Each structure stands twice: as C-alpha cells, then as structure tokens.
C-alpha cells in the first residue's frame, strides 16, 4: 500500500518538467486577462503608447536622424558617432546601429495590443461606450499608421505586423511587405482612424498632444503625396484648412518662443509633448555635446542673407532655426529668440505636423494637379507672413511645374528646417515619375559630400535602393523571412 503511494508520488514528481517547476511567473496569458477589464485599462494602454514615445528619448532623435542626416541641412557635429557620420556620407552597412528599428516595432506592438484587445472590454465594462472605444482605437490606428509610414519611407520594404504579439509562441518570422503595400495599409488604417476620430478633447494640451481628426488628415495628405494620389491629398489638406482651427501666427519677437519654445500654438497640429517631467536630449545633442550641426547650406543659402541690410531677415532663420555663428541648430533648444533652454528645461516638443506644412502639402498637390497659380499663391502667403527675404524668392511661371516644385521644396526647407522632413521631401519629389528628378538627390549630395568621397557617393545614389536604409543584421539573423535590400548585399 505504502509502496504504491510512494510510486504515485515518484511518478507525479518526476513528470513535472524542470522549466515549469522553476517558473515563478503566472502561466501564459493571465496578466492580459486580468488587465483588459475596465475602460481605465484601455485608457492606460493608449496613454502608454504616447508615454513610450516620450520617455524613450532616442525615438524623437531617431525621427530627426532618418529625416535630416541624409539630407543637406545637417552635418555631424564634433561628438557625432561613426554611425552618424556614415549615415551622412552614404556609407551605410547593415551593422550600423542606427538601422535598428526595434523601437518602432515596440511602439507598433503597443498599438496592436490596443487594437486587438480593447474591443473585448466593451463586454466587460458597461461604462465604456462604443464611441469612447472608437476614440481610443483611432489613436492607436493613427500612431501605428504613422510609424509604418516612417518605416516604409526609411527602409522601403518592411514586415507588416498588424496583430498583437502577446506571447512567445507568436510567429515572428514575417516576410517584408512592399513599400506600396505598406503605404496602402497606412491609408486604410488612417481612413478607419478618421472615421473613429475625436476632433476636440476639450483642452489644449490634449488637442495638440493626442491624435485628433486633423492630425489624421495631415498624415493622410502626407501619405497620399507619397502615393502620388494628389486629389485625395488635396482633399485631406482642405479638411484641416476648412476646420478653421489653425492659423499662421504673424511675425513678431515672440513668434519663435510661442511656436517652438513653448509649443502647442495655434500653428500646431500634432506634437510630441516633452515636459519638465519628460525631458528630451535636444540640448545635449544640439549644443552641449553637439552631435548635429547646421550645414553651410543651411547657414548661408536656405534663409538667404541681405548683404545691404543684414537686419532684414527671414524670421525662420537666425535665432529660430539656426544660430549662424557656430552653425548651431537652434530650433529645438531655444526658449525664445534670445535665450536657450538648459539641461533641466530641455522640453521643446517634437513637431509631427504644423499647419504650415499642411498648406505646403496642399501647394504640392495643387501643383501636381496642374493648378500652379494656386500653389504659388500659398507659397507667397507663407513667405509674406514669415518675412522671407527677396534673395530666396523665385518667380516660376504658373505652368512651369518643375520650377514650382523646386520652389515648394525650398520653402519647405525654410519652414520645416530640421523637423525631420528634408531627406523625405527631396526623396518624395525625386522618385516621382520613375525618378524623373534624381538630380535633386545628386545635387543635394554634391553640396555636402567630402571631396575625397564625392564620386563614390554620387555613384551610389544613382541606385534608388541606396535611398533606403538596410535591414539591420540582427533582424536578419532572427527573422529568416526577411530579404535584405539588394544594394546592401
């Protein structure tokens, strides 16, 4: 009898697997089931998406790197790393740490989790109504769309993961989707998000710091421009403009402080809300241990200099975007046009979309729809309010699409200087009509290439695949379904 008991004991004990026996974590899934119960849980998960973007300081800096470092307005500063320099000189390997997209997919997974699991809370918590849920879903969808949009602009073909990764058994072996497919998914998500969206949260900070209908419209316009769907791009910009919620602030001594130093101005559509509790690295990387500086083009040509009357200045230039002496990038570190912020007050927002960009996107769409005159009128309107100087003025004919396009690009470089746009702007225009304007990318490289690497850089950039970053080597090891961009083989 006793032997039997012991035998049972033996069998029972010896069949416990070692791993499980030592595992102190709750079994798979319990946390999730306990968490997604109330609407507060949903809200917390959505706010978690934003706080991930804010608390990971590298995220905003990475947006800056992808949008500016390959362009012609930023050069590596004295403290730039090799990886940053290599990105700037089109000398990129798949071992370059800046090609690691991990932080993007991490946030995407936060979004996916909300999109997958929030709807079930509707049954659990009667105080959560349908409309409220849709608002949360619209935020998650829009942010996910923006991240995939950025990835596809940066890497071209990327894996599209649209459901939440909840445990280790999920499939991580996902092949890349083509850039076009990703863009179309972005549009689909944005359209869904727009349907669910909230246009007013009732307070300024949330209206500028969370996804609103207008933030979604701005993203739609941007994505449609990349898809060369100019009618829809135009419609999207008009939705923002016709809302009447935004305006350009007239030039004054306080303009810079209001729009950039402080943020959340009436020019703003969607900003990443850094604050005294959530500081950014800007004062560090742009000033104290400068990793990025303004290129000589940005200092001398972009805003122009009136030699006869140096006082006559574009308000977006000196002490707004740049400080010419020292080639400093000022936009993200200035408190106002006189004072800089400090390490303990480095809280300038990251500007995803501002009203002026919507106007310029409208001009781009109009020009492509052969409505050049209206496009020029928009550029002139912005130039006037920003007190742009004569030397940067162009006078393209209303039917000269190419010159108007150049004019819009130049105006974008002034208006949106260093906001993570320049490289993408030039790439978007260059690649249209089967890379009809490849010259834009080459001349951009000519202005900044080191003399002894110039020829190599020019020849590399003639291959459109070189305009996109390689998939990081570590990703290729872990996900065997990925195929490297052929330029980097």
């Amino acid at each position: 009898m006793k032997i039997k008991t012991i035998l049972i004991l033996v069998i029972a004990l010896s069949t416990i697997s070692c791993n499980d026996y030592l595992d102190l974590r709750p079994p798979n899934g319990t946390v999730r089931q306990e968490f997604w119960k109330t609407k507060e849980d949903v809200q917390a998960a959505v706010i978690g998406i934003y706080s991930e973007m804010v608390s990971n300081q590298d995220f905003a800096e990475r947006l800056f790197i992808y949008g500016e470092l390959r362009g012609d307005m930023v050069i590596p500063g004295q403290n730039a790393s090799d990886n940053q320099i290599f990105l700037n000189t089109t000398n990129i390997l798949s071992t370059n740490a800046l090609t690691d997209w991990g932080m993007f997919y991490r946030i995407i997974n936060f979004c996916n989790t909300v999109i997958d699991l929030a709807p079930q809370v509707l049954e659990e918590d009667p105080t959560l109504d349908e409309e409220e849920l849709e608002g949360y879903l619209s935020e998650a969808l829009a942010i996910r769309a923006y991240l995939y949009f950025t990835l596809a602009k940066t890497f071209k073909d990327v894996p599209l993961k649209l459901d939440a990764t909840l445990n280790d058994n999920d499939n991580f072996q996902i092949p890349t989707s083509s850039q076009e497919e990703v863009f179309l998914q972005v549009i689909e998500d944005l359209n869904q998000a727009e349907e669910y969206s909230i246009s007013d949260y009732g307070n300024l900070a949330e209206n500028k710091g969370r996804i609103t209908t207008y933030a979604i419209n701005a993203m739609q316009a941007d994505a449609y421009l990349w898809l060369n769907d100019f009618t829809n791009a135009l419609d999207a910009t008009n939705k923002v403009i016709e809302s009447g919620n935004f305006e350009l602030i007239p030039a004054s001594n306080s303009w810079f402080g209001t729009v950039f130093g402080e943020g959340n101005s009436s020019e703003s559509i969607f900003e990443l809300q850094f604050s005294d509790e959530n500081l950014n690295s800007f004062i560090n990387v742009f000033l104290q241990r400068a990793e990025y500086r303004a290129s000589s083009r940005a200092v001398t040509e972009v805003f122009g200099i009136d030699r006869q009357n140096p006082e006559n200045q574009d308000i977006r230039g000196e002490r707004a975007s740049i400080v010419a002496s020292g080639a400093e990038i000022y936009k993200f570190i200035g408190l106002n046009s006189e004072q800089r912020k400090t390490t303990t007050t480095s809280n300038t927002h990251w500007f995803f979309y501002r009203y002026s960009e919507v106007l310029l996107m409208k001009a781009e769409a109009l020009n492509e729809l052969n409505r050049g005159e209206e496009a020029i009128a928009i550029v002139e309107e912005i130039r006037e309010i920003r007190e742009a100087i004569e030397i940067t003025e162009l006078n393209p004919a209303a039917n000269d699409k190419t010159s108007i396009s150049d004019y819009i690009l130049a105006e974008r470089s002034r208006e949106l200087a260093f906001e993570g746009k320049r490289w993408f702007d030039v790439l978007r225009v260059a690649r249209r009509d089967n890379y009809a304007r490849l010259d834009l990318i080459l001349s951009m490289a000519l202005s900044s290439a080191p003399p002894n690497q110039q020829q190599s850089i020019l020849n590399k950039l003639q291959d459109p695949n070189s305009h996109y970053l390689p998939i990081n080597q570590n990703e290729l090891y872990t996900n065997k379904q990925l195929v490297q961009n052929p330029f980097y083989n």
Partner: protein
Amino acid sequence: MKILKHKIFYIRLLLVIFCLVHSSCTNEKYKESTDETVNITEYLKNNEENYSLFLDILEISNYASFLNTYGTYTLFLPTNEAIDNYIEESGANTLEELNIENLQELVKLHILETKTFTTNFNDGKIATATMQGQFLVTGATNNEGNSSIVVNKESRIIQSNIEVGNGIIHVIDKVLPIATNTLAQEIESREELSIFTQALKETGWYDFLDQPITYDQDSISSHLSIIAQTNNVFASSGFNTYQELKNRYSNLDNPANPEDSLNLFVAYRILPGLKYVADLVTSPAHNTEAPQEVIGIKLAQDTVLINEQTFNGILEKGVPLNRDQSDITTTNGVIHLVKENFEIKKRFPYPVYFDPGDQPEIRRLASVFRIPGQNASFSQEDLQDVDWEGSNEISYRVDTPGGGTYGHGYFADVIEIHRLRDGYINNLTFTTPVIIKGTYKIWVSYRAAPSAPTNVQVYFNDEALSRQINFTEYGNTSQPERVLESQGYKIPVSPQTNRFNSRLLGIVNVESTGRHKIRFNSLSSAGQQTWIDVIEFRPIEMDQIYPRFSPNGLVEE
C-alpha cells in the same frame, strides 16, 4: 524488525527517488572550444561551391595555411566565375598551367594586412598597400540603375564585410589585375599619348618614370603621379607633332637641359608621391618636379580644376582633369589625363595681405563674416587652416567700421586670442594663402593692448624671424612715417590711429609658390586678449607702407 527492514527500504527508495527527481532533465553541453568563428581558409572550405578555385590558388601558391593563422587581414575574394575568366584571359585551360610566381603575386595583391571595412573606402586608394606592394583603388559605379562598390575600377564587390576570425572578406566578381608597366611603359603603350611619350624621352624624364619603387630612410616611397595629355589635347592647342611642341617651348633648343622650358613643361606635370584624384582634391596645392613650382587643385562641383585661382582680383580659369580616364595604376605611380593644355604659371612676387579672419569656414558664416557687430568662436577642429596648442577656442570679431575697439582695422575684423600664452593658447599656426616664390618682408599688424603678451616669436615655415613682436606697443603717430619704417614700425591703418601698430618681423625668401605656415609662439605671459588684424607679405622691392588698410579694404592714403 520487519518494520525496521521496511523502514530502511523506504529510506533507500526515497533516496533513489530524490536522486531521480533532482537530476537535471538534460545534460548541460559544455563548449569545448573557445571560439567557433572560422578563419579565412576555413571559410573558403565551407563555401567551396563558390570559392574552390581561389582555395586551389592558395594551395598552389602555399598561402592556404598562412590565411588560416591568426591576424587581421582583408581578403578580396574572387568568385570561381571570376577566376575562370582570369584563366581564360591568361590563355590557359587550368590553374595548374599558370606560373606559380605570378599566382603568388596575384594572391598577395588580394590581401591587405589590416582590417579594412568598406566604410573606410573613399574615391581613391585604400590607405594600406596590399601585401604585393601595389595600392588598391576604390570607388562606386552604377550599372543600369544598380550601384556597387568597385575595386580597381572594374571588380565589383558583390558581398562585403564578411567577418571571419582573422579578418574580413569582400567578395569580388573579377580578379584584380596586377599592374606590370611602369609609368613610362604605360604611357608609351598608349597610342594617343605618343607626343607626350616623345617629350618624355627627349627631356630625359622617361628614364625617371621607368624606375622601380625605392624607399628612403624615412620609408617614404618613390611613387610618382603624372598628369599626361593626349595628342588630341595637344592638337587643340595647336601642336600636331612633337616638333611643333618643341618649337614652341624649347627655348634653349636642348630639351634635356633641366633649365629648358620644355623640360620644365614636362617636369611640371610630374608630382612626387602617389596621388590619386581623391588625394589631389584634399589639398589646394601640390609640389611638382619643376623646381619650386606647384600646381593648384580646386574642386568645382564634381570637376577637378588645375590652376584655377583668383589672382590679383582676376579669375584665372582652370583646366579640367579628365576624371573618367584618370587614376591609372602602374607599378611606380599613377597617371592622370587632362582635358586641356596647361603651362607653368610664371608669376612675380606679389604682396599678400593675409587677413587671418578670412578662413573658408568663417566665410561660410555669411551672417557673421565681416558683418559689423558679429562674432563667432571656433575650436581647433572647426578651422582646417588654423592650428594651436591648448583646448580653448579662438574668436573672430567684427567691430563697427572705423570705431569701437578694433573697428579701425582691415575690414573692421580681427582674430582674437583670449590669452596668447602657455597653458591657454600658444603656438598658433596659420596656413597662408598662396604666396609666389620670391623675397618678402613680413609685417604683422595688430590692435595694441596694455596687458597683451610682450614677447612673441614668429616662425615662418618653422624658421624663427629676426624680430619678436610686442603686442602692448601702441602705434607712433608723431614720428615721420619713413623714419618709423626704418625702425621697423608703421601705422598700418587709414585713417591713422595709434591703437593699431605694425611690426616688421624680418625678411624671408619664399622658396616655392604655394601655401606656407606662420606660427606665433608667445614667450611671455598674457593678461589680456591679443588681436591680430593682418599678416603682410610685401615683396622687398615694393613700398612697405602703402597701401594702408581701412575698414573698407586697401587705400593708398
């Protein structure tokens, strides 16, 4: 008793159970080697389907074991297909038919003894020579929309930066060719260079270009770079034959004489050192074999121009280099081709009023450069032509023209050194603009300051000038100017003020036309800023006082 027996049995059983339960489920696997990364030879063996032929070459040439030893190598690895093509081009059927010594040289040409990633490549040579001795040239090409990095212009890298235990591998699609011709042979072998070849032979430079590489006591090689020109280029300048060229240039009717102009014409095209185009563009002036003559190089967009400069206020158009046809590697140097004929710039000594604030990096700051009231500070890395000891920054300052502290000076701007002394900033060295060879008096004009350093020794190309400079000395406006000049002083600015003073530091013989170094070494302490306005190089035969400097430029009053 029975119970006890049972008890013992149970205890034993429990022990067994205990052991069973506590033994780990899986045996732990211990790694028996410290490193599993394969070395180069091992890597080739693992990938025989692509690289078996190179492996064969290594075996034949006895390099297989060498490449399996520890070290830091870079291997340019030709694929089997590349080697098949090479065998075919060599007129053989199999590897075994090829000369072993040639194969050894070939292997050595594909190996560097350092780890060189593609990120270290530029438009010119890789900094380290191959084991064979020749340098490899890198670049990028675009072929039907696909770009790739190329080595020696033709071998495309199809897989790069493969890290193995003893270095890295770049896979190439074509065997790298060994240059076998000397400069002289290579030029002679080209029909389109026949006039140039004849000029080389008649002037005696042919033999100079035909010598193997040697190294001097400082291990500096005897590599040469030559800028050749084709018959077409000669023809477009009106020289259809060598005779016509000789008639035009050979003034002594003896081209072999080093003083003959045709001899100098050729010598002016030979540059000491191995300078690929990427090396040429990194420096604005290069020495030539023509005594004391330099050629200027300027990069305009992507065109390399020879001898383009603004001289005496006039732009002299440069001659473009034929970039596509340049960078031809030979055993003892590199050949470039030029698109137009060019001549030695004959110039007489000409004054240089060097404004040390006129640096390319400062000029680029158009909202600061010579804009009243502006200033900017620079650390050492910021300014390529200025160098100093100490980690502090120097400033560029512009004052109100004709007023303020230093607004009376040349263009109302100065270079300010907060403290010119040991421990702050000392041994401040400027690279001058191009100075034509000749004899010059060197003057330094400055804004005097009561606590500035009193003894500053100035060096021109490391040679101490005879007088020191005392930055506390104010100008003397009461003495007649010629008397003052004879004592080595003058008021440099107009309208005159005693705040600015200029000191004659000595007479130098500038032996070569080009850019030179001038260094300020303070021997005393400093309690105040030092403001340098202009460093003057005036030919000795020229008036030493006029023109003077004004906030608007030079004036004759």
